[in-house]
């Protein structure tokens, strides 16, 4: 499914092996779609000599640092942005932050 800026999303807690571009520390974490970056060939296929088609939508997703790390040292406003492909995201119905 596609998302729009402002949507709450959860990064899939998948353990897909191989060349994936979703860092482990984000899996299962919730954030907010900041912007839609466009469509790109799927790097998980490109890495193995495939075409990467169909292209996948890429989103800039914003996370609160205190949602990522229990012992985060900085203020609660500090954020982390990561670029996450659509097939790694699912809607999150939790509270907005």
């Amino acid at each position, binding site marked *: 499914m596609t998302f729009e800026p402002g949507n709450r999303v959860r990064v899939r807690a998948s353990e897909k092996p191989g060349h994936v*571009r*979703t*860092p482990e*520390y984000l899996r299962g974490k919730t954030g907010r779609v900041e912007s839609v*970056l*466009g469509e*790109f060939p799927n*790097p998980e296929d490109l890495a193995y000599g495939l075409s990467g088609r169909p292209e996948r939508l*890429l989103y*800039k997703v914003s996370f609160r*640092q205190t949602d*990522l*790390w229990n012992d*985060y*040292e*900085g*203020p609660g*406003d*500090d*954020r*982390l*942005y*990561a*670029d*996450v*492909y659509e097939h790694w995201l699912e809607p999150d119905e939790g509270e907005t932050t």
Partner: protein
Amino acid sequence: MSEAHGHPHHEAGAGQTISPYAHRIRAIEALLVERNVLTEPEVQDQIAYMESRSPENGAKLVARAWVDPEFKTRLLSDTKTAAQELGIDASGPVEFVVVENTPRVHNLIVCTLCSCYPRAILGRPPDWYKSFNYRSRAVKEPRAVMREFGFEPPEDVEVVVHDSTADVRYMVLPIRPPGTESLSEEELAALVTRDSLIGVSAPRFAGS
């Protein structure tokens, strides 16, 4: 100089040793050439391309953005086209995004998965940028990392870390230091360090 495997440009000089990783990459390169995937001139062209890029390009973009608000708008909205205006060719498949520091927001760039970096503009990243230490700590304790670079944003400044996980490369537009009103664009560019374009520090001006 050995010609044993046809790579005269790869031998280490006297007293130098070649790491196992370097041996491995040379073996891979030799295979790619042997199988006609790459040619030696293509490899050399790519090295020349990368060595023609440097943080000076980023400094030129930043200095122009500091003196020309309309250019700044273009740099933030369409980085490739803005770079082209200054003769910097950043064309290619990856996207570039410039993120602006403000009195309320400080940006820091990292690639936790490998070493993604705006190479078409800035050239090769510094070795520390590729280190496991920086990649793992920049996302988890960015303020501690910046302190080690001698830079400490105030607590009321939001620190925003950008993990370059996919097809976009990021560069920071730092804040113009106070007291620089009378400096020329060239003098301003000289204040912009590579580290400030990554966000681990900020340009400083000591005054005249």
